[in-house]
């Protein structure tokens, strides 16, 4: 019904839309999400023929190219066939007309209805969009932002359009009002077969309103796919970063921003200056939207890359399988938490991934290349150990410790080495003063030590950090700071973290995905929200039920927790091994 082909729009030198390709069938509901300034509003305006810039390409509406139409024809299509709900900024409503008159206006203007008919219809529509009857005759400035938003929607709906473009439609509404509007809009979509194009930064609204969800950045669509799937398992680094920075009730990881500022780069992928996995080609060539098993992704690397992959990894100690054919993928820029009771083989797995231990069988891939014995990637995967007191040599000063990796890597003058080490010390939020860098580990507190260890692990610019219980030796307040630091570093550097912990509550706060390990096997794996709210494997259930909670265990109501608590009181085996 609506098809955009290589649509571009520019205001003078400023290219706002560059090569948008999008096709909507009648009855579709598509949402495009993106930050402010990514071209959402311009796209809406361009389709409506309201864009003040230079618009090129083609906008096919029912086979007709809207860009080739003369003003008069376009005027007929606008509002009658295509409705636009303006983003309610700068008071789009005319302040000197009563709101009902403004809803009547498009109907009368287009000569569709007589004034009295239009009045009745306007009342009906305003009622439908949820505006209280006593507000109909008020002036816009007498209404709240949310109410104005409803009036704008009513105006767009007045002429019964086939396509409704919603630009930040529910921005001024509170959450309960939003739900009401979403139901209303979905009803329009389903009952009256009105096609919806939603342009918003509100991801939750986008997911609820649409069947297909896309992300828009720098005037390009970077990812497009089924709404829920895109939101829960984003494939493009931008979509993922956007979702990570969006507060919602589903994900529990701490909010992370996107590094850098929104810019419009001259060449290459628009997102490459801020992307965490950009390679050379990203800055020179524009990636096309390609289909990856039903998901359209515009990325030279095919979306978020699988950074490290373990396939059927097994480690036997005297016939006992500490790790039993584990298959695990760590994606670029994500935190994967490996959770399990002690003795489940987590550390053994980590050591195999670090190449400290030779697996009995199985393979490890790093960036799709098999890792062989020489440990070629050694600098790109670094480890943070459980006890910083042990992992830092007591004979070296903080400065020596942090510069040790640089020294091993070699080819660096002492001065540069020193400068780099200082930068690292600053990155982990430790003071750079002489007093600290000349201290020995036993002069430092546990939290400071772990920061030093983190600084050291970052020295070689790794792509993956394997953190083995990095905070279990720290007290809660310091743990919180160290975890925040790790997330902050991840945001800035875009590195992946394999976070090994027995504490599912910690995992919940810092990871994107959780893999639960039990007796050497990965028994469950998925997005954090799914693992926490709907665990399937008994071991996961037990871990969730026994996780630290501020409420009394009995009020948990899962049953497992009660059983565990009872078991603990009786000293039963189940208390010792929550998974048995």
């Amino acid at each position, binding site marked *: 019904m609506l098809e955009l082909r290589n649509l571009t729009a520019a205001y003078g030198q400023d290219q706002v839309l560059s090569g948008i390709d999008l096709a909507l069938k009648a009855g579709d509901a598509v949402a495009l999400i993106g930050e402010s300034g990514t071209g959402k509003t311009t796209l809406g305006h361009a389709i409506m023929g309201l864009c003040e810039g230079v618009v090129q390409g083609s906008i096919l509406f029912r086979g007709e190219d809207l860009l080739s139409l003369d003003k008069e024809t376009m005027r007929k299509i606008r509002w009658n066939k295509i409705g636009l709900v303006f983003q309610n900024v700068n008071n789009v409503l005319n302040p000197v007309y009563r709101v009902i008159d403004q809803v009547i206006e498009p109907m009368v203007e287009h000569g569709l209805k007589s004034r009295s008919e239009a009045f009745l219809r306007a009342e009906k529509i305003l009622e439908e969009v949820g505006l209280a009857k006593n507000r109909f005759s008020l002036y816009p400035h007498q209404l709240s932002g949310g109410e104005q938003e409803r009036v704008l929607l009513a105006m767009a709906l007045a002429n019964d359009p086939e396509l409704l473009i919603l630009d930040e439609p529910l921005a001024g509404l509170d959450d309960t009002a939003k739900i009401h509007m979403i139901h209303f809009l979905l009803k329009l979509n389903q009952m009256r077969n009105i096609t919806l194009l939603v342009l918003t930064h509100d991801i939750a609204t986008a997911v609820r309103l649409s069947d297909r969800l896309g992300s828009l950045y720098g005037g390009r669509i970077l990812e497009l796919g089924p709404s829920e799937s895109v939101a829960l398992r984003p494939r493009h680094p931008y979509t993922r970063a956007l979702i990570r920075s969006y507060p919602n009730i589903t994900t529990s990881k701490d909010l992370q921003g996107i590094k850098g500022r929104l810019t419009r780069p001259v060449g290459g992928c628009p997102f490459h200056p801020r992307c965490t996995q950009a390679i050379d080609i990203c800055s020179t060539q524009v990636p096309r939207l390609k289909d990856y098993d039903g998901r359209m992704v515009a990325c030279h690397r095919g979306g978020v890359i699988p950074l490290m992959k373990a396939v059927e990894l097994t480690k036997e100690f005297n016939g006992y399988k500490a790790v039993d054919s584990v298959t695990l993928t760590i994606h670029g820029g994500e935190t994967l938490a490996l959770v399990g009771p002690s003795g489940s083989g987590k550390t053994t797995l980590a050591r195999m991934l*670090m190449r*400290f231990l030779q697996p009995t069988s199985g393979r490890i891939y790093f960036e799709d290349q098999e890792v062989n014995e020489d440990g070629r990637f*050694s*600098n790109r*995967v*670094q*480890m943070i*150990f*459980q*006890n910083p007191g*042990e*992992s*830092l*040599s*007591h*004979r070296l000063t903080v400065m020596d410790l942090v510069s*040790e*990796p640089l020294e*091993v*890597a070699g080819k660096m003058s002492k001065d540069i080495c020193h400068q780099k080490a200082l930068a690292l010390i600053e990155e982990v939020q430790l003071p750079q003063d002489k007093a600290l860098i000349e201290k020995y580990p036993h002069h430092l507190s546990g939290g400071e030590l772990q920061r030093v*260890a983190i600084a*050291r*692990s970052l*020295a*070689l610019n790794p792509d993956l950090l394997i953190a083995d219980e990095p905070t279990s030796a720290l007290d809660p307040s310091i743990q919180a700071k160290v975890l925040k630091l790790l997330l902050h570093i991840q945001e800035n550097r875009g590195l992946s973290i394999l976070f090994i912990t027995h504490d599912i509550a910690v995992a919940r706060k810092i990871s994107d995905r959780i893999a639960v390990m039990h007796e050497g096997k990965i028994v469950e794996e998925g997005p954090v929200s799914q693992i926490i709210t709907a665990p399937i494997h008994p071991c996961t259930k037990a871990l969730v039920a026994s996780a630290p909670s501020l409420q009394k265990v009995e009020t948990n109501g899962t049953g497992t927790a009660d059983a565990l608590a009872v078991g603990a009181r009786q000293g039963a085996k189940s208390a010792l091994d929550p998974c048995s």
Partner: protein
Amino acid sequence: MHISLRGEFCKNRFGQVGLVILTGITVLALLAPVIAPADPHRQTRRSFEPPSALYILGTNHVGQDNWSRLVHGARTSLLVGFLVACAATLMSVLLGVSCALKGGLYDSILMRFVDALIIIPAIIILLLIFAYLKPNIYLIAMSIALFSWAGGARILRAQTLSLKERAHIWAARSFGGNNWYVMRRHIVPDLSPIIAVEFIHAFRRGVFVEAGLAFLGIGDVTTVSWGVIMRNAAEYSYMNAWSWWLLPAGLALSITIISFTFIAHTLEPIMEPRLREEASA
């Protein structure tokens, strides 16, 4: 391994005594040309003189001054001991640590060799060697060292085996540090107290074995050494010159060995913390 060597000596009287004796002997050896009244090689016609103001410890069978020979003999003993200690410790460290780090066939073969070396009686082999070679003190020192590193290597290997599983060693490896780097930067400094003990043991062994060989007639007979003094004196045991000829050399050797033993005893707890008195009390 937070062990301060000075701390150990402060606590231990044996250690202090050992240090004092060793320092005394070392000073004696260093100042030998000053202290000794006569050239230790110069022969006179006045043989078998009893102690007098001129000859503090009398003279020997060819009229050499016993006191001068004793003082110069300390130089030989300490020099050989020092060379043995250096060479043997170096070998212990290189071979012991590399065995632990490399493992595999290299480790197995070398350790069996160490086993063999430990049971072979060194003196007999040395006697055989020097039956064919013309010995000088450097050759003797190196030969003794060759039979003195095995025990130390085994101890250092065992310590390295446990040390290399420590997190900071793993960390160093994760930066790309190879065996040589890990050994140089981490393991040897971490093992330094144990290496010090090994050094003392090798030193003592060097002094002792050198004297023994000299006594058995191995080595340059013209060298001034406690072993040579005792050998000469023993040949004239029917004379009553032994009390100022044989005895001083024997005593000097004994107290030197004892001083090393005391020092080693003081450092022993470093290797075996269970020997600490606080722990056993």
